[in-house]
């Protein structure tokens, strides 16, 4: 299931960055490169038939382009740190909002928290359900799905993973 779930996450992340910010991300082959350098993390918690958190860890060099493209600005240097973080929060919000129905279908109802910027200590320490790494022209990102428990059997039976 994990491999198919990773494919679903990759598709949602690639689609989100392309449609939201005209940025192209590519799944890394094999294990991929551990994101390094200056990193920024953001996450969204969700509650529903299964609960947990979707977390993105992204190279900080990617954020000015993300912010500029979402704001429609030509000059990346003019994108404030606040706007860069706002853009990243919106990106993970859209990723989570599209990922949950891609996993569980359109019938279950999930409540999503507000997206927030995370410190390293905020990242759940337990096992993750899935993790994908993607690369941009100038950096990397990693998206992880952490669960507080297990996906109920009635959902795993329904999903096409």
């Amino acid at each position: 299931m994990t491999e198919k779930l990773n494919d679903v996450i990759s598709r949602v992340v690639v689609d989100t960055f392309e449609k939201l910010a005209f940025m192209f991300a590519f799944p890394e082959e094999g294990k991929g490169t551990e994101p390094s350098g200056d990193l920024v993390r953001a996450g969204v918690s969700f509650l529903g038939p299964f609960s947990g958190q979707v977390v993105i860890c992204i190279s900080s060099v990617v954020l000015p382009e993300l912010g500029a493209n979402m704001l429609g600005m030509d000059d990346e240097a003019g994108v404030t740190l606040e706007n860069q973080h706002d853009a990243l929060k919106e990106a993970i919000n859209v990723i989570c909002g599209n990922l949950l129905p891609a996993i569980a279908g359109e019938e279950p109802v999930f409540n999503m928290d507000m997206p927030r910027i995370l410190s390293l200590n905020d990242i759940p320490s337990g096992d993750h359900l899935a993790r994908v790494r993607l690369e941009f022209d100038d950096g990397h990102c990693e998206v992880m799905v952490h669960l507080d428990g297990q996906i109920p059997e009635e959902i795993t039976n329904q999903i096409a993973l």
Partner: protein
Amino acid sequence: MAINLLVVDDSKVMRAMVLKTMGMAEIPLSEVYEASNGQEGLDLLDNHWIDLAIVDINMPVMNGEELIDRMKENPETKDIPVVVISTEGSKARIERLQRKGATFIHKPFSAEAIRDTVKHVLKMEDRDDGKIE
């Protein structure tokens, strides 16, 4: 016909994206008002003529669904078209919003989706040059 637009979203970046996309879709705008939650949106609706409200759902202070409920309770705002732009994926919730009279656009959205939806809810017509009026 240029319209007065209210955009209600707690993300400044998303409000900017909506306005950028409205421009790309060549929707003629007159006045644009921005609010970061439903309560701010209601305050703006009290004081300004609004032709169309574009509303997020998941917001602090007052969410988009409560804003729509309050608009529908008020004779002065109940007929203002509301377009919800959200990541919401639950069919039941989307149908509930539609029963309240809102039109739903899923994030991430395209300029074409905005253009077609706004044209539809405001009953705008295409001109010969492809622009709308």
